Every structure is written in C-alpha cells, then in structure tokens.
C-alpha cells in the first residue's frame, strides 16, 4: 500500500514537472510572435509613377520614377531611376538620379546615387545626393557638389541653393572659379 502511494506521488510529481516544462518550453519566442502578429510594412509598388508637391495651387516639385515603392502606413516612398522637376520661380530644374526617398512626414526628398540637376537656363548641379528641405525651401547638394552657372563654377563638399536658384552657399573645400576652369 505504501509502495503504491509512493508510486502515485512520483507519477504525480513527474506529471507536474512535465507540465511546467511544457509550459516553459512551449512559449513562442518573441520574434516568432512578431512574425505572427506583424506582417511587416505594407508596401504598394508602382511602375512609371509620378508624385508631386503643391503649394497654393502651384506645383513645387514632381517626381517621376520607373519604379516606386510606397509604405502604405508611413506614406514614405522609395524611387528607382528618378526624373524630377523642381520649379523655382520662372526657373525649371530637371533632376535625375538612380535612387530617391520621399519622407512624407517632413515632405523632404532625397535623391542619391549620383544626382544631376539642369535648369532651363542650362545651369548644372552635380553631386552625390540632392535633398529638398521642404520646410526651409532649400535645395542641398551633398558630396562632391559642382555647380556651373554662367561663367561661374563652384565646387564644394556641400552646396546649398536658395532664392530660386540664385543664391548659393558652398561649404567644405569651397572653391569658386570665374572664367575658364
């Protein structure tokens, strides 16, 4: 009788320990939960799409991209093979770059991978990346920036254009040449 009692108690203990072990080891890992609960960013992909920013009914800029990928939740957009038009007063600036990002929160646009801007007056701006800072109305050329305007050439690590592409601030190895380079 005592033996039977011990056996029952041992079995009960084993069952209890086994139950605890099952509870502990069967809890899914955090990443698995995430995977299960978060399907990832919801993306929409477009081909040959154009987006634009308007202010007071006037188009400030528009971007055409061969491929666009928009995050449905954040509205941020990544572009491939971008061609943009940027309107500054009477001047039209056409911008090309292999890659770009639009931040819907800041409304800033960053084009990178080697950006080039050409104005309707045949002025050119080349740089590694080009950023439109919406709140400040500034166009920033960052990385090996080179501006050619009329007889003036400006090179610098960073060139900032403002005042309808009439005012420029060059910083870092700033170099301005008038006449033949």
């Amino acid at each position, binding site marked *: 009788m005592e033996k039977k009692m011990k056996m029952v108690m041992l079995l009960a203990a084993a069952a209890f320990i086994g139950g605890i072990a099952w509870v502990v080891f069967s809890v899914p890992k955090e990443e698995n939960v995430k995977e299960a609960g978060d399907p990832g960013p919801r993306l929409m992909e477009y081909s040959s799409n154009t987006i634009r920013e308007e202010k007071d009914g006037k188009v400030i800029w528009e971007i055409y991209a061969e491929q666009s990928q928009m995050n449905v939740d954040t509205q941020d957009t990544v572009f491939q093979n971008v061609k943009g038009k940027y309107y500054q007063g009477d001047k039209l600036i056409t911008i090309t770059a292999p890659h770009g990002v639009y931040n819907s929160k800041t409304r800033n646009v960053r084009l990178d991978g080697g950006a080039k801007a050409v104005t309707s007056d045949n002025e050119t701006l080349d740089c590694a990346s080009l950023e439109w800072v919406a709140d400040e109305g500034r166009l920033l050329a960052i990385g090996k920036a080179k501006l050619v305007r009329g007889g003036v050439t400006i090179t610098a690590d960073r060139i900032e254009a403002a005042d309808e592409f009439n005012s420029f601030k*060059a910083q870092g190895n700033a170099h301005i040449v008038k006449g033949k380079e």
Partner: protein
Amino acid sequence: MSTMKSIHKKSIAAAAAVLLGISSFAIVGAEPSNGASELNGDVVEYNAKTGLMTADGHVVLKHNDGVARGSHAEYNTKTQDGLLTGGVVANQGDTHLTCDSVRFFGGTQVVAEGNVHGSKGDKAYEGPRAEYSTDNEYLRLPAGGTITTADGSFTADYMEGWMKENHARGVGNAYVTSPKRNFEGGGDEAEYFGEESGKVVLTGNAWAIQDNNRLKSQRLTVYLDEKGQAQTEAAQ
C-alpha cells in the same frame, strides 16, 4: 645730387608698381586676361542676382600668376568692388604685399590699409595707407610713409604721384636720402618733375647735402642730367 632723380623717380614708381601688382588681383569679376580667377575658402557664398561673392576662413584668391590670402573676401562681379581682409598676404611675380586690408573699387582703384608693406623687386613701400587709381595712374599715400629703392629712400607725411607725367610730390617733413651716393636732402615739401630735365624742387626750409657740399634755402631747385650731374639754384 646725382641720385635725386633716381630716388624720386624710382621711389614713386616703386609704390605704384606694388599697387599695380595688387590691382591686378582685382579679381574674380574682371575678365581674366589669360585664365580663370579663383576664390577659395572654408565657406564661399555667391548671389547671382547681386553678383556678390564672399569667402570666409582660409581665403585664397588666385588670378593669373597672383595669389592673395586673407581671412575674409568679398567681390561683386557686377560692380567689380572687392575687399580682402585679415592678415592679407599677396604675391604676384616679384610683387609682394602685406597689410590689414585691401579694397578694390570698380576695378580702377585699389586701397591698401593698415601696416602696409609692399615690395616689387628691390623697391619697397611701408606706411599706413596706399591708394592707386589705374585709370589716371595716380598714386596717393595720404598718411605718408617710406619708399625705399636700391639707391635710398624717400619719406614724407603725405605723398602723391602722377605716373603718366612722371611727377611726384612729398609734403611735410620730406626727406630724401641715398647713403650709397652720400646724399641727403629735405624740406617741408619735395616735388619731382621727370619731364622737366629731372627737376627737383625742395621748398620750405629746404636743404641738401652731398659729400661736403651743403645747401640751405627756402627753395632749392636741382636739375639732374642723364650723367647724374646736378645744377642747383637756391632762392630765399
């Protein structure tokens, strides 16, 4: 007296040459005669509407074979007015200049101010301010100074020169010296007329000494011939 001609002529020419050298830096906006003009700095700004260029920090200005350095530069491509300040050091060929600031007006006038030290070859100018107009080749040293050549030096409280006419004037404690030729002279005013047989007029307590010859008068006129001989007229 043989040196007086050479001293006056070369002295004024020396200061003019220095400023001519400086004026050739007038600069980025002027159409470069044989190449580009460059303006470098830590930060460079350009306004295409106004034509104003500015540079700050480690400013280097290059034009032709000239290089000028300072800490701040401004240049307007439309008006051709310019300014270079902050320990200005400019070199072009054998022309050298150091000063606190240089200002360019319309590409025709240059003003160097503050501890101006300029040299061209063996000629040098030292003083607080030098002004030069390229259109009429007029040099003005309103606060005087000292001009030095290989022959000697010329000092006055106020100096000016008309380069086309080869005419120069020093006013106030005018003093000419040539240790090399054992000559010195002075007066309240000294005036040189290069086109009139090298005439030098010393007026107001005028005096001249060469070797053991001494002259003193209210007005001394010295004619210098090409051989370096002098004829002196003294008048009370």
